């Protein structure tokens, strides 16, 4: 490999080809993997090759893709289905959208390969309706692939047929969970159900079904083109290939990055992301979205893969990666994610519906300066119970943002409950603005900026804030050109 930190496999065609022209995909080797497979490989060989590649699901769980296909192949069914999960509900994530917008044919080719491997002749792409451009390009791609005879009946004269249809997502985060997704495709409420039975046994319409994430699929044609052996040389012992991340937050170069598994967070933040905006100090990186956790500086040098991230209390997730600088309040971040998951909980089971709501309420109390040390113990205890007793992945992982920030930033929680202070100055109820009389020259700028008119003082004399009326909006702090206002 050259000196580049990034290696593009899943994104190989994004930004290179015209996604609305199948010929550009074909010119870059598109459908060669499918052609070769249909021409000379048995379905079992396809599964073996995927197992050999070490490819694991990129949608969050990290389950070995070859094994999943093998289960669906072995289970009997009148019909079988392949579903592409393009629900992508994590706030801040746009990896799957980018692949669908930049290289939709790769997903269709991969679905047909999976169909051949398990013995399925029908596939659905379950995509969120909020992705109009991706839907448009996918629709064009499907039409062109049918016209070219690369999906549909008797593909390339092989006798194998595979149809692909689009289904629009209902817009709820939980619909990305595979059992909820299947019930949504069937036209029912998108609610998860208990596993087993797994989709590989009883999935869509009760038939053996494989649900694969967009990025997982995007890797599949490449694996057959480059060879499973070569693919397996990339990455770490347990995690092969690359991972796409949507790099966001307080980093200079936000964007879509694809790195070999085993790359360190430091390489992503500093070499690829070009460091923290404004030269500020790094504080944490959030991975795994609402199911993941915040990783502190001490772990910047561990090679990231599915296992290492789990060990440090976060997870790979689907690839959202938010960089946070020193001005971030970790309690506030935990509260943000909990608010998201409580909004998105489907309400089917009690620990998730009520438990996460309680967690959220306690966090609100703490950020308002009304929390106690007992509240911190309750957070931990309740979080543990929710994780152990919720029905689906949403509830099981929802406490992670709280538990991981408590693990690494406990001092910050303590400051909130003991000293009633927010060290980052984010929780407004705990922030105090004061004018330092020695520095104030009485320019009146702050008084003019204050929306509640609670700053008094004569021109050229030190001003004063009436704390009882102050709403902590920070307008005075921004207005003062003389550093005379102290924020604490």
């Amino acid at each position, binding site marked *: 490999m050259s000196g580049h930190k990034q290696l*593009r496999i899943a994104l190989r065609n*994004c930004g290179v080809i015209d996604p609305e022209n199948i010929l550009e995909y074909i010119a870059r080797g598109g*459908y*060669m993997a499918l052609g070769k497979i249909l021409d000379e490989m048995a379905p079992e060989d396809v599964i073996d090759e995927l197992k050999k590649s070490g490819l694991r699901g990129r949608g969050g769980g990290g389950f070995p893709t070859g094994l999943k296909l093998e289960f669906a192949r072995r289970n009997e069914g009148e019909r079988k289905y392949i579903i592409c999960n393009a629900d992508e509900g994590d706030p801040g994530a746009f990896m799957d*959208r980018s692949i669908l*917008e930049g290289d939709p044919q790769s997903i269709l080719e991969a679905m047909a390969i999976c169909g051949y491997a398990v013995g399925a002749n029908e596939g659905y792409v379950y995509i969120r309706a909020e992705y109009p451009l991706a839907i448009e390009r996918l629709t064009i791609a499907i039409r*062109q692939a049918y016209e070219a*005879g690369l999906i549909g009946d008797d593909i390339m004269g092989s006798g194998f047929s595979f149809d692909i249809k689009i289904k629009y997502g209902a817009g709820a985060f939980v619909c990305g969970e595979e059992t909820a997704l299947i019930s949504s495709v069937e036209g029912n409420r998108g609610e998860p159900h208990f596993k087993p039975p797994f989709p590989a046994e009883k999935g869509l319409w009760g038939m053996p079904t494989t649900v694969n994430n967009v990025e997982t699929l995007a890797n599949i044609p490449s694996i057959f083109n480059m060879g499973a052996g070569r693919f397996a040389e990339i990455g770490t012992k347990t995690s092969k290939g690359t991972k796409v991340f949507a790099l966001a937050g307080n980093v200079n170069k936000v964007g879509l990055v694809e790195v070999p598994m085993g790359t360190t967070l430091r390489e992503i933040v500093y070499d690829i992301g070009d460091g923290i905006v404004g030269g500020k100090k790094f504080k944490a990186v959030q991975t795994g979205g609402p199911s993941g956790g915040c990783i502190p500086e001490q772990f910047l040098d561990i090679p990231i893969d599915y296992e290492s991230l789990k060990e440090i209390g976060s997870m790979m997730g689907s690839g959202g990666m938010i960089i946070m600088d020193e001005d971030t309040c970790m309690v506030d971040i935990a509260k943000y994610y909990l608010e998201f998951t409580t909004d998105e909980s489907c309400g089917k089971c009690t620990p998730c519906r009520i438990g996460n709501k309680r967690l959220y309420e306690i966090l609100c109390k703490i950020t308002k300066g009304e929390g106690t040390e007992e509240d911190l113990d309750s957070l931990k205890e309740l979080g543990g119970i929710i994780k152990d007793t919720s029905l689906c992945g949403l509830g099981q992982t929802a406490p992670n943002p709280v538990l991981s920030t408590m693990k690494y930033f406990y001092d910050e929680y303590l400051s909130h409950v003991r000293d009633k202070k927010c060290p980052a100055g984010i929780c407004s109820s705990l922030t105090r603005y004061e004018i330092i009389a020695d520095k104030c020259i009485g320019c009146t700028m702050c008084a003019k900026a204050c929306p509640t008119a609670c700053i008094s003082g004569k021109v050229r004399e030190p001003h004063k804030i009436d704390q009882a009326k102050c709403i902590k909006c920070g307008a005075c702090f921004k207005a003062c050109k003389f550093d005379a206002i102290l924020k604490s």
Partner: protein
Amino acid sequence: MIKIKSFNELKELKESLNAQREHIRIIVGMATCGMAAGAGEVFDSIAGEIMRQGLKNVTVVRSGCMGACHSEPTVEIVKPGEDPVLYGNVDSSRAKVIISNHIMRGEIVEELVLEKNYETASLGEVEQ
């Protein structure tokens, strides 16, 4: 579009497509991120300028995300036999400069060049 009826036909089509590739490609990043930053206008002005200048050997391509969300809109120039050059923060007037300098005179517009910090896995041709 003709129907491809065998693996051999697919291979032949691929060969013939690659044989025709002596055109200069101007690739505009037009995923949701690029569109939000004004890539649509940039595309239109590039296409218009190519017509006005009567440049025949140039293809303007609408493409997906090149990953550089921090510098959208992005435009990449791929000339046969040369390393591709990626430009960032392109607007309509900068696009015209890129066409007159880089496409027509072969001079790279250094101040707009973005460092391309990734490598694409070679597609490892299927044995034929």
